[in-house]
């Protein structure tokens, strides 16, 4: 065994220049794949984490059908009690109740139609990062405080500042008129266009009062920083709410299918490019493998004559390809990893990214993902392709006739 490794190793270095060029080609591909896959996955993580963190949560409990048709009447009874029950039963601290409505909101000079959301202040702070991005004024003082928060863009459009009054006119859950006047106590700036432009928040009890909710709400929002635990939590929560058979648990990708699909689309188009690239690399190095067999016809003839089986020689050729590829992959992966590590620490940003970041709800610097998947997936694909490329020359050895082969130059 050792001898065949030594044998293969020496064969590789018979033509150092050729070997080095081949190694460079593979290493280039591997490094590039490690870098871009790490960057892509890192970007997706951030997009998910951001959108989950800022407002939407990892999971939501809703009335069945509410997601597709968010109607005031598709509500959950005694929502705050149910939230408390879930917190105790599952041990997850970050569970909060919300209620959503639509209303005409007016300042002294402007009127807009916006989403109105009722939140539980203390719990909302555990679930959403919105309470942390109040740029003017302060957050809600209590769950029944007579206060509202609005987004920066809406405040600008409505010419409102902290302390001004906001008139709210909408329809309650029972169809009655919901009207009130509340002071703006804070203005938040989340960076998400949707939230900053089109949402007014008020404490849940106040909301339930204004919109005649009678203890009802529309969603229990659950947050946890570890997205991977999602399925575990989902099962736990599912068990808890199974006695309310009209409730359903939705995960972030069901709450925001667009985000999930955008990621999938981006990831699959990325892989299309990677595969094309890997195939180009494979063919560009195929010649090295092919030549290393063709120019050794005579040598193989002698080996056959000496009693080597074609299988042994084939294995030797494969071993050479394997060693070469592994060296190249190690170098490429190490370089790709080093680049990603650098950006992991210092962050990567490019010009114009701020605008895109706002639209897609991402932070304006990307940190690559450093995980087994992001590091080894690309190199693994390259390994498979190069070994396939080496298989063809290795199989050709079976066609050799010892006597004819020995006579070749």
């Amino acid at each position: 065994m050792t001898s065949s490794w030594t044998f293969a190793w020496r064969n590789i270095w018979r033509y150092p220049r050729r070997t080095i060029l081949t190694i460079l080609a593979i290493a280039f591909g591997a490094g590039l794949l490690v870098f871009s896959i790490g960057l892509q996955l890192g970007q997706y993580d951030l997009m998910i984490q951001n959108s989950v963190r800022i407002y939407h949560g990892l999971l939501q409990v809703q009335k069945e059908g509410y997601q597709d048709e968010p109607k005031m009447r598709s509500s959950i009874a005694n929502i705050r009690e149910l939230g408390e029950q879930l917190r105790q039963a599952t041990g997850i601290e970050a569970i909060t109740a919300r209620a959503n409505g639509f209303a005409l909101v007016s300042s002294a000079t402007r009127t807009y139609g916006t989403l109105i959301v009722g939140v539980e202040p203390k719990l909302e702070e555990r679930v959403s990062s919105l309470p942390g991005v109040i740029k003017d004024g302060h957050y809600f003082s209590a769950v029944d405080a007579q206060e509202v928060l609005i987004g920066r863009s809406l405040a600008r459009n409505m010419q409102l500042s902290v302390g001004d009054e906001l008139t709210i006119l909408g329809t309650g859950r029972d169809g009655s008129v919901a009207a009130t006047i509340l002071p703006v106590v804070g203005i938040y700036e989340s960076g998400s266009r949707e939230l900053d432009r089109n949402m007014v928040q008020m404490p849940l009890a106040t909301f339930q009062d204004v919109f005649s909710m009678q203890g009802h709400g529309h969603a229990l929002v659950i947050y946890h920083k570890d997205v991977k635990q999602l399925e575990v939590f989902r099962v736990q929560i599912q068990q808890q709410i199974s006695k309310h058979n009209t409730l359903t648990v939705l995960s972030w990708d069901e709450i925001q299918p667009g985000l999930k699909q955008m990621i999938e689309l981006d990831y699959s188009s990325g892989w299309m490019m990677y595969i094309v690239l890997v195939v180009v690399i494979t063919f560009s190095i195929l010649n090295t493998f092919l030549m290393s067999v063709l120019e050794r016809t005579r040598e193989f003839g002698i080996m056959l004559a000496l009693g080597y089986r074609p299988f042994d020689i084939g294995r030797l050729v494969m071993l050479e390809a394997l060693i070469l590829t592994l060296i190249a992959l190690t170098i490429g992966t190490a370089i790709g990893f080093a680049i990603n590590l650098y950006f992991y620490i210092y962050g990567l940003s490019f010009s114009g990214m701020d605008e895109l970041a706002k639209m897609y709800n991402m932070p304006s610097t990307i940190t690559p993902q450093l995980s087994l998947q992001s590091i080894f997936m690309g190199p693994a694909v390259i390994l498979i392709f190069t070994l396939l490329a080496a298989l063809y020359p290795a199989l050709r050895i079976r066609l050799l006739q010892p006597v004819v082969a020995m006579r070749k130059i």
Partner: protein
Amino acid sequence: MNSFHLLISLAWRNLWRNHRRTLVILFAMVLGVWAMIFTAAFMRGMSLQIVDDTIENMTGHIQIHAPSYLDDPVIEHSFSSANPLLSRSLQSTEITAAAYRIRVPAVVASERESIGLVMVGIDPDDEGQLSFIQSSIIEGHYLKDASEPGVIIGRKLAERLETRLGKRIVLMTQNNKNEIADRGFRIVGIFDTDLEAVEIGYVFLTRNLAAKLVGVTDDVSEIAIKVSDLKRLDEVVEGLRQQHPELDIKAWYELQPISKLMVDLYDSFHLVWHLIVFLAMGFGIVNTLLMAVFERTREFGLFQALGLKPGFILGQVWVEALMLLILGLALGNGLAWVSVLATGEGIDVSAFAEGMEMANLSNIIPFVIVGQDLLLANSVVFVLGMLTGLYPAWRAAHLVPADAITRI
């Protein structure tokens, strides 16, 4: 001339001495060139689609507003459409269509639901030449003329409001005295587009009705303009700005900076992608040519011993590289052309509809080959390929005759 001819035919024959090796590297190159052009066509299709969608989705090529409208889109910030100077500038031959709009935020309510959106008062004929609405009606009809009393809403909005064609909805908006004005309208048409945000975000009615509701006569919030030649867009914008310094005049890319940014990103990615693919095949090209050179060490030694100048040998190997490149480029371009033809209208990505929507894109992405992209891909391969071929050629020319001739 004769030696040139010799050079060419020698190179061609040498190229096919080891046809298997040449075919392998040729395949790698064809694949690489194909990948470059095909991907470039996809990216070009994508960015043209972004521009088209942006322009069709009510943006037009140019928009005119009152100065503070974009920050605060209310009816107060409007300007008079009865300005003869303005009408005259819009009659320029460089402008193919101009649509006057009253465009203000509003709330629409059915018997069951209410939703905030944008109310757009349009002149049916002019608008039809400019934006998607007229061609997207799936039920009922488009606004017939300026006296049409009904409204048009999106399919998704109708669902959300639980209403349908022929039903009434109420529009509420702020009038020019900062009071709430409301009025009921019958739905006469329903439109359907790829973008849900558009279906749910707009309600259309005639400009006369909208004007009455918000309490103005000939004031408009915006004029959208289509130009005859997009290449001259900046000049047209500049001309309008000089004639009407009191108005806010912007080109589409200033109005939708994100679309512009995406287009720019795609554009800059073209070159990056070409370079990556070239590097991937460049190593193989060098390797293959080097092999071809080293195999012929003895032959080159002999050439030199016979008195051929190193320049000739360099030229010969370089011409081999050139032939390989030209073949690879020709076949790669051909293959890419055929595959783009084969995709027809483009690829349907409606499986990712909601994701595309977040990116502001519709569901069919066409593959578009434009001269500029072809030129870029081909020049990258050609120029870098020739530079790459120089190394093996140089090696071949600098063999020492006496050593080379004795090598097996």
